[in-house]
C-alpha cells in the first residue's frame, strides 16, 4: 500500500523585503524556529535557521541567539523551554513558524516585540479551492469542517475542498476533458463525483442542494468544545490520555477464589533484584506458606509455596514478565491444603517495633503489587526520611479492577496496613489517591475516615497514567520527582505504595500469612467468565484462560493477544505456558488488530506523542533515531527518563513501535554507562 505522505509544511520564509523591514526595527533579536509538523520526519534540523542567516546578510549581526523548539504551539512544553532562555539582553524575538507559534510566543512575552519571519502556507489539493484540513495523516483527502457534511450526496468526495468554486450543485460549465477550468492539472471534482456515484449505482447528484449555512458551526459551539477539550487535557499532570476504560465487565464482580492448580510453577524471581536461592529440592514435601526460596542479598525477596504437595523439580520455565526463561520450583498439589506451622496470627502486632515490622515484611516475601515488584522491606528503608505516604488506588489501566475490588471488599485491612506502614516510615500524613471512576471504592474507604484521621482520601480525575508514581505525586502534592534513572520519590520526601501491597502487609503482619496468593482481574474480549479472582501464585496461565473462556484454548494466540497486566502496559505472552507471579495484576485478552505497531512506518510529525508523554519528553526522536540506528542520539534526547508508560505508542498516528525502539535505546544507555 503506497502511502501518499504529502508535505503539509505550514510555513515558508517571508519575502526578503519583509524580513529586512523587520530587521530595521530591531537591534538585538533572538530567533526561535519551530521544528515544524505534518511532514515525513527525516531530519531533526531542516535548515531554516541556516537559510535565514543567509538571507540576512549583514543584518545577521543583529541576531544574538537562536534555538529550535519543536512543536512551538505546544504551549506547555514550549513555554517551559522559552522561560529557561535568558532573553534579558535582547530587544525582540523573531519567530520562524506558522501563525500559531508566533501568536503563542507573542502572548507569552507580552512586553517584548515578537516578529514573524515566516508566512503560513495555504494547502489545497485543488488550489484555489477552499482551504481544508488534513487529518492526522499525510493523505490527499481534506475536510473543510463545514459541520454539514455533504459526503453522503457526493459519493464520498468533498465538493468544498475539491471543487475550486465549492459548488454544491456542480459542475459548472467550465470543465474541459474532465479537468477544472481554474487549474487544468486537476480533475473536475464534479466529474469525479459523477463517476463515483455511477460506480456505486447511486442516483447521480440530481437533487437540489440548498445553499450552505455559513453560520455553522457557531462560535459558541466551537468555543464550547474547545473549553471542554482543554478541561479534558488538563487535570493534575501534563500529558496522559483517556483510553476506553472497559471496566464494566468486572467492576461489580466480587472476588472469587480460583480453584487450586494441579501443578504450581513458582518462580524464584518475582521481584526486582537478585533471584531467591532455592531452599528445597525435588522430592521435598512442602506446606502452604512454606519458604521455598531465600532472599539472596540486600535487594532480594523470599518465595513461599502457595500449595501443599511435593516438589517435582527446580527448572527453567517460560517467564510471564519478559521473553525469557527463569528458574522455578514446580510443585505437585497433594490436595491436602496444609498450612505451614509458621503461619500464626499476631494479636499484639500494634505493639511491634518498626524493625520487627520490617522483618516480618521481609520474611513474608512482600513486594510491590502494583506491578513493579520491588522488595517492600528495602523500599521502606529509604536513605532519606520521608514526610508523606501516598497510597496508590488509581488503577488507571483499562480492564483492571483488582485494586478496585480490594478497596471495596477490604477497606479496613488496607487502612490497617496503612497504619503499619505509617509506623515504619514515621509519617504523620497519608493521602490515598483513587480515580473518580471508582465511586464504590471511595465510599468504602470513606466509611472509616473517622478512625484514621491522618489519612486523607483524594478523588482524582481519571487519566492514564494517573497511577504512575510521578503523576500521582505531582497531582496530589505538586512535587516534581527528579527524572529517572536516578530520581526516586524519596528525593522529594514521599513514599508511594499500592493498595494491594498494603493489604498484603496487613495479612502478613496481623495474620502471619506470607505472600502466596493475590487478586487478579481476568477480562477483555471473547471471555465467557471475566472476573476478579483470588489466585495462588504459580497457577498456570493456561488454566485461568481456559476457565474464563470456558472452552479449549489451543491456538488462541493466533487470534488473541494475552497480556500479563492491563491493556496498555501489560506484557504480551508468547505462549500460555507461564504462570501467575506476584506482579500479575491481571490477564487481559484482546483480539488481535489488523494493524500492529511496526518499526517500519514513517513518522509524520503530528506531535501527539509529545502531547501525551507524562515525562514531558519528545518520543518522536526515539523513533527517528531508533530507525536510523543512532542510539546515542536518542540518549541525548533523554530516553533514560522514559518510564515506558506506553502513552506515545498508543497515541501514535503512524502506529510506530516506539516502545521497542525505546527499550533498545535504554539498554544501550545502560551498557554504555557500565562500559
Amino acid at each position, binding site marked *: *500500500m503506497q*502511502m501518499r505522505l504529502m508535505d503539509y509544511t*505550514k510555513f*515558508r*520564509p*517571508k519575502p526578503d523585503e*519583509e524580513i529586512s523591514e523587520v530587521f530595521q526595527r530591531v537591534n538585538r533579536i533572538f530567533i526561535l524556529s519551530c521544528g515544524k*509538523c505534518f511532514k515525513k520526519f527525516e531530519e531533526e534540523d531542516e535548515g531554516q535557521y541556516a537559510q535565514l542567516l543567509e538571507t540576512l546578510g549583514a543584518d545577521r549581526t543583529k541576531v544574538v541567539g537562536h534555538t529550535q523548539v519543536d*512543536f512551538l*504551539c*505546544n*504551549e506547555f512544553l514550549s513555554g517551559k523551554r522559552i522561560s529557561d532562555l535568558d532573553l534579558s539582553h535582547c530587544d525582540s524575538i523573531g519567530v520562524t513558524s506558522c*501563525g*500559531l507559534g*508566533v*501568536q*503563542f510566543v*507573542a*502572548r507569552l512575552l*507580552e512586553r517584548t516585540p515578537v*516578529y*514573524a519571519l*515566516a*508566512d*503560513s*502556507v*495555504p494547502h489545497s489539493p485543488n488550489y*484555489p479551492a477552499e*482551504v481544508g484540513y*488534513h*487529518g*492526522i*495523516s499525510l493523505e490527499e*483527502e*481534506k475536510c473543510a*469542517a463545514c459541520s454539514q*457534511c455533504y*459526503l*453522503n450526496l457526493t459519493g*464520498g*468526495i468533498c465538493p468544498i475542498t475539491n471543487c475550486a468554486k465549492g459548488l454544491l450543485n456542480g459542475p459548472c460549465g467550465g470543465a474541459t476533458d474532465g479537468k477544472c477550468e481554474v487549474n487544468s492539472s486537476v480533475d473536475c471534482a464534479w466529474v469525479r463525483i459523477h463517476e*463515483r456515484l455511477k460506480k*456505486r449505482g*447511486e442516483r447521480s447528484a440530481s437533487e437540489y442542494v440548498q445553499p450552505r449555512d455559513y453560520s455553522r458551526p457557531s462560535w459558541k*459551539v*466551537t468555543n464550547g*468544545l*474547545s473549553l471542554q*477539550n482543554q478541561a*479534558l*487535557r488538563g487535570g493534575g499532570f501534563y500529558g496522559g*490520555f*483517556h483510553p*476506553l476504560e472497559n471496566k464494566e465487565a468486572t467492576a461489580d464482580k466480587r472476588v472469587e477464589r480460583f480453584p487450586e492448580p494441579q501443578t504450581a510453577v513458582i518462580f524464584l524471581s518475582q521481584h526486582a533484584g537478585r533471584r531467591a536461592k532455592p531452599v528445597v529440592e525435588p522430592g521435598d514435601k512442602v506446606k502452604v506458606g512454606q519458604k521455598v526460596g531465600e532472599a539472596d542479598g540486600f535487594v532480594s525477596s523470599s518465595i513461599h509455596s502457595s500449595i501443599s504437595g511435593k516438589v517435582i523439580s527446580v527448572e527453567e520455565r517460560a517467564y510471564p514478565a519478559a521473553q525469557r526463561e527463569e528458574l522455578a520450583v514446580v510443585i505437585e498439589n497433594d490436595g491436602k491444603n496444609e498450612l505451614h506451622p509458621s503461619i500464626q496470627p499476631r494479636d499484639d502486632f500494634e505493639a511491634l517495633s518498626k524493625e520487627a515490622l520490617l522483618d516480618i515484611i521481609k520474611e513474608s516475601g512482600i513486594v510491590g503489587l502494583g506491578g513493579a515488584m520491588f522488595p517492600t522491606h528495602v523500599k521502606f528503608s529509604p536513605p532519606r526520611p520521608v514526610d508523606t505516604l501516598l497510597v496508590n488506588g488509581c488503577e488507571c489501566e483499562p480492564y483492571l479492577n483488582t485494586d478496585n475490588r480490594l478497596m471495596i471488599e477490604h477497606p479496613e485491612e488496607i487502612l490497617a496496613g496503612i497504619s503499619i506502614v505509617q509506623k515504619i516510615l514515621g509519617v504523620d500524613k497519608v493521602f490515598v489517591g483513587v480515580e473518580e471512576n471508582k465511586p464504590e471504592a471511595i465510599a468504602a474507604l470513606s466509611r472509616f475516615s473517622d478512625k484514621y484521621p491522618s489519612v486523607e482520601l483524594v478523588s482524582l480525575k481519571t487519566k492514564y497514567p494517573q497511577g504512575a508514581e510521578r503523576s500521582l505525586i505531582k497531582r496530589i502534592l505538586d512535587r516534581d520527582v527528579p527524572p529517572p534513572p536516578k530520581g526516586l520519590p524519596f528525593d522529594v520526601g514521599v513514599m508511594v505504595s499500592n493498595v494491594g501491597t498494603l493489604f498484603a502487609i496487613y495479612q502478613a503482619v496481623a495474620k502471619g500469612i506470607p505472600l502466596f496468593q493475590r487478586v487478579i482481574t481476568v477480562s477483555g474480549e471473547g471471555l465467557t467468565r471475566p472476573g476478579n479472582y483470588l489466585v495462588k501464585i504459580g497457577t498456570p496461565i493456561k488454566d485461568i484462560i481456559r476457565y474464563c473462556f470456558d472452552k479449549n484454548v489451543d491456538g488462541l494466540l493466533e487470534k488473541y493477544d494475552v497480556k500479563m497486566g492491563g491493556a496498555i502496559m501489560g506484557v504480551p505472552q508468547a505462549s500460555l505456558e507461564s504462570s501467575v507471579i506476584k506482579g500479575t495484576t491481571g490477564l487481559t485478552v484482546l483480539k488481535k488488530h*489488523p*494493524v500492529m505497531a511496526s518499526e517500519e512506518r514513517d513518522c509524520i510529525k503530528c*506531535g501527539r506523542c509529545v*502531547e*501525551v508523554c507524562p515525562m514531558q519528553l519528545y518520543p518522536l526522536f526515539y523513533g527517528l533515531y531508533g530507525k536510523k540506528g543512532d542510539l546515542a542520539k536518542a540518549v541525548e534526547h533523554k530516553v533514560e527518563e522514559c518510564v515506558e508508560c506506553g502513552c506515545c505508542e498508543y497515541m501514535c*498516528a503512524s502506529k510506530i513501535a516506539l516502545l521497542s525502539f525505546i527499550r533498545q535505546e535504554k539498554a544501550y544507555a545502560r551498557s554504555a554507562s557500565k562500559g
Partner: protein
Amino acid sequence: MLAVQVKAEAEILPLISSKRLFILECLGCRDVHYPVEKAAEFMDSLKEEIVGKATLDYLCHREFVHEYVKAYAGEIEKAQVVLVFSCGVGAQVVSSLLEDRIVYTCCDTLYLNGFQGLTAKEFNCDQCGECYLNYTGGLCPVALCSKNLLNGPCGGSQAGKCEVDPDMPCVWQQIFDRLAKLGQLHTLERLGTPKNWNVSPASSAPEKRLA
C-alpha cells in the same frame, strides 16, 4: 484539529432504511473530542441488522483502512451500506478504498483551533500565506476577526467583545491592548492594503504583495 458531531437521525435514517450495515468507527481523536455516548446511542437505536463493526484509530490513515477492509472483507461483503463514524477525512479515505460500495458518513465535522497535538489552542491560523502578525502585535485578524478586517475594529466592537457573540473577544481590541503594552500603537496607523486571498501554495517564492 478536527472534531465531530453525530448527524441528526432524520438525515441518516432514510439513507440506511432496512439495509444491512457494516460500521467503521474511528476513535483516534477521542482525546480531542469524540461523542462516544451519542454515537453508541445512535448505533444502539438502529433497527437495521449490523453485520459487523470495527473500531480503529485514525481512519484518515490509508494503510490502516486498507488493512481493516481486508480483515473484515467478509462482513463488508455481506453489508449493503458501510456506515462511517469519523471526520470528513476518514470518511473520504474509506470511500476511496471502497469505491464500488455504498458508504455513508454519520458525522458532521468541525474545526477546533490547532494543527498539532490534542489540546485546542486559543489562537488560529488560516494559512492565508501572507502573515500579518507583524502589524498587529502578534494576533491574527484574518483568523480571529469575524469580518477578517485588516484595519479594524469595526463599529460593533463593544467592551472588548465582538458583535457576533457577546462572549467572543474582539481581536482588534486585543490587538490594540497588545500594541499599547509594547509601546507600538503607531503601528495601527499603517494602512493595511487589500489582501490576496488566493496565495498560491505551489510556488516556493512568495507572491509579490501589492504596495
